[in-house]
């Protein structure tokens, strides 16, 4: 059985969705919790159309029912977790009747969902950015973990919490320590031991010991001058970050902006120096997917002009700043540095990656890799900790002036800001422009026809865009993507962030629509 929440899998992770659909054809149950009746919901045995930003109330109510009706996995809770009492106390404040008001679904539907979840083992919970891109994103994630621990669905194949990573190598970029708080392999920069290890490996002294800035802080630092130089590698921040006007003001404020990319884009306009990089299939390397599988990427074509591999560019800068690095290919970087320094990756060497790759943790070279984590309820920190969380509404909710909620995401034929897919023959023919998806109810109310141009505005900006009248979208909601610059949803989105992760609330802001 699957519980898919905040994930438009058939469009954002199409091939993963095929395996869910296959399981449904073979008799697995599928519950989809999502404001939109997106295509995966057509395959679901139950679609719970919760309101945007009501996930915690929904999950707390599910757990309320599971505890009240004695349907949870007591053996797992007793032997593998702590703080059940704290969780119980909190979720008892969320009877289905209360959650129903918040979520916009009936109390009986919540009870039904809870009973179904308790009826089968294992249940795999899949989520995507519908969970994380909220001011309560971190708490949303904790809720999913609470639910799966309560159901005893952790540490088993086809169970667990399965976040589908948005980008091909977002898992890998984390594993590599492209994060302000950890070295490669999640070793904290605040740990003296970890610093000593990397100082030794890199032949340097005094590695910085406090956590660095996260992206929104960096960008704010451009305006107040705390950040004087900003180096953007392969990101089109001018289109992808919430509130484009604010972002462009920040980028324009940069004293010295370096962009390293394969195409000129809306962000490189602000650069002082642009480095041309080799693209996918123009150099060898590895990607790590959502299942922590490290797979090879191979060279098929020559990079154009003087474009060079990214690792080479960083190495040249290091050299000019006084460090001569030995590794001179992606393979040498992996085999001689990464897999030596990151404990989870020690057993992964290029020679072992010829076929289907290896899933970390893979601690030694005879290890077959690890298909799923927390086996037999053994969590990284020992026992699984229940962390009760309170529901909080999005930072900006509809009001009289801006009566609709805007939620955003990706569509099937394109990827992010179309720097890649917009340049592939045929993909623009499949989807050539942005639309604002609205419900037939609202369209009728406002006399908007399918394909009519409408104006969508928020407190931050406005776009002219074609209306796409679809019953995928519930009354009161507008749904848009960020693939096309002119009608990019990020002219409208709210730069309000989760206080811990600083993830922006792309999934909820208030807008108005006018014909």
């Amino acid at each position, binding site marked *: 059985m699957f519980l898919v929440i905040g994930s438009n899998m058939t469009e954002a992770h199409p091939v993963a969705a095929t395996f869910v659909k296959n399981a449904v*054809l073979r008799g697995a149950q599928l519950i989809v919790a999502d404001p939109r009746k997106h295509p995966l919901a057509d395959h679901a045995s139950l679609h719970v159309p919760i309101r945007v930003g009501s996930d915690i109330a929904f999950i707390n109510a599910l757990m309320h029912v599971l505890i009240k009706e004695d349907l949870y996995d007591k053996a797992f809770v007793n032997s593998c977790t702590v703080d059940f009492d704290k969780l119980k106390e909190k979720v008892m404040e969320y009877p289905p009747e209360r959650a129903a008001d918040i979520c916009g679904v009936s109390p009986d539907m919540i009870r039904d969902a809870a009973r179904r979840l308790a009826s089968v083992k294992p249940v795999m919970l899949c989520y995507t950015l519908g969970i994380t891109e909220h001011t309560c994103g971190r708490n949303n994630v904790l809720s999913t973990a609470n639910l799966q621990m309560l159901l005893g669905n952790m540490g088993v194949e086809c169970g667990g919490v399965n976040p589908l990573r948005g980008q091909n190598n977002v898992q*890998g970029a984390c594993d590599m320590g492209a994060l302000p708080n950890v070295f490669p392999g999640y070793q904290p920069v605040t740990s003296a031991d970890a610093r000593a290890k990397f100082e030794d490996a890199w032949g340097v002294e005094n590695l910085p010991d406090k956590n660095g800035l996260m*992206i929104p802080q960096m960008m704010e630092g451009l305006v107040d001058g705390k950040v004087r130089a900003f180096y953007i590698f*392969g990101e089109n921040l001018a289109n992808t970050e919430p509130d484009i006007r604010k972002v462009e003001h920040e980028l324009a404020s940069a004293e010295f902006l370096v962009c390293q990319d394969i195409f000129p884009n809306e962000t490189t306009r602000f650069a002082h120096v642009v480095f041309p990089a080799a693209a996918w299939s123009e150099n060898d390397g590895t990607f790590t997917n959502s299942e922590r*599988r490290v797979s090879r990427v191979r060279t098929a074509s020559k990079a154009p002009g003087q474009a060079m591999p*990214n690792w080479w560019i960083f190495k040249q800068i290091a050299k000019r700043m006084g460090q001569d690095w030995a590794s001179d290919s992606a393979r040498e970087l992996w085999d001689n540095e990464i897999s030596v320094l990151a404990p989870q990756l020690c057993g992964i060497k290029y020679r072992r990656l010829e076929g289907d790759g290896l899933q970390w943790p893979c601690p030694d070279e005879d290890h077959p890799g690890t298909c799923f984590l927390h086996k037999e309820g053994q969590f990284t920190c020992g026992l699984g900790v229940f962390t009760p969380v309170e529901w909080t509404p999005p930072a900006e909710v509809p009001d009289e002036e801006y009566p609709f909620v805007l939620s955003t995401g990706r569509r099937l034929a394109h990827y992010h800001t179309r720097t890649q897919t917009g340049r592939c023959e045929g993909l623009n023919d499949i989807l050539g422009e942005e639309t604002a998806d609205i419900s037939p109810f609202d369209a009728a109310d406002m006399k908007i026809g399918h394909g009519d141009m409408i104006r969508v505005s928020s407190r931050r900006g406005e776009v002219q865009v074609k209306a796409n009248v679809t019953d995928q979208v519930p009354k009161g909601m507008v749904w848009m993507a960020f693939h096309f610059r002119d009608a990019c949803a990020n002219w409208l989105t709210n730069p309000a962030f989760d206080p811990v992760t600083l993830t922006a609330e792309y999934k909820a802001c208030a807008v108005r629509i006018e014909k």
Partner: protein
Amino acid sequence: MSDNMFVLNGREVSFDPGQTILEAAEACGVQIPTLCHLKGTTPTGECRICVVEVQGADMLVTSCSTPVEAGMQVKTESPRVVTERKKILEQLLTSGNHNCAISGSDNGNWTEFQLQVQKNDASSELCPVWGDCKLQELAYQYQVKITPSSPQRDYYPSEMANPMIIRDFSRCILCGRCIKACNEVQVNRAISMGYEGDKAKVVTPGDHPLSESDCVFCGECVQACPVGALVEKKARHIWRPWETEKIRTTCPYCGVGCQQLLHVKDGKIVKVTGVEDAEPNQGRLCVKGRFGYDFIYSKDRLKTPLIRENNEFREASWDEALDLVARKFKEIIRENGPDAIAGVSCARSINEDSYQMQKLFRAVIGTNNIDHCART
């Protein structure tokens, strides 16, 4: 003989309960030819090319849909089986535009036939899958030659009206693999078998073109097609199997990490297919994975370092651009310390690039101001 044994071509072999004859034979290395069978989907027995002889049975049975029974005596290449397969192949070859199997027997009819097909096809080229066609392969294997003749039925015109997939009904053998791929593998439910008898055709609901249907252009049907009835528009007549090298790689789009085969001709990717039986995607791809590869050849690519001067970019050498960046970074570190520099890595690029960038920031610049879009 024990409960899990049967006799295959005179050899006693084991099988797992529930296995078909085809699966059990494949498990012990005996190949049985198939056309309509698509691994992992329910068998139809439609094309009958996989027939085998079972002792005691009057008729030949389709191995893809017949379960093995203990003690069963099966022959996979008996004279009776071979005769039947030749007959089936002959029928398939004469049913459409499959002249590639005819060696040295061209005549006027063939030319006329070919011209007629080409009118629909809008192409004067050799069959786009010549050399990579299951039917062609089997025709050679069983040495089937057909007498050239006019087409035995009228064909539906080819469908070219979408950006990705060409449907050439003159080459369709109605095996139904595309339907299985769409309905049981990708579960998009965009196509099914329509009309009857001589009029049979793979159709979308209402027989509308793919672009006006529920088709999402994943191209699973193209990968499943054993003949030249479904081909990639971008690759047609450019891709030839004997001119291309296949390179396995990982898709550059979402976090699933599908394994792709890049079909590379003269240093250029001309087609992409899924790696069959590979993890995690088992041969499947989506529209971006299959058709989203040619951005790297765009004329818009950045080809040289650029430096801003008087509010415009000018081309620069690597040395000049790198020197400038290093000099500026050193100046800022000297004046305000390393934390006045910040960087964002790329979640699209390879691990080794992200490793190298965070190393530059930590070990060289001396700051932990390195992040990427992980939490969005």
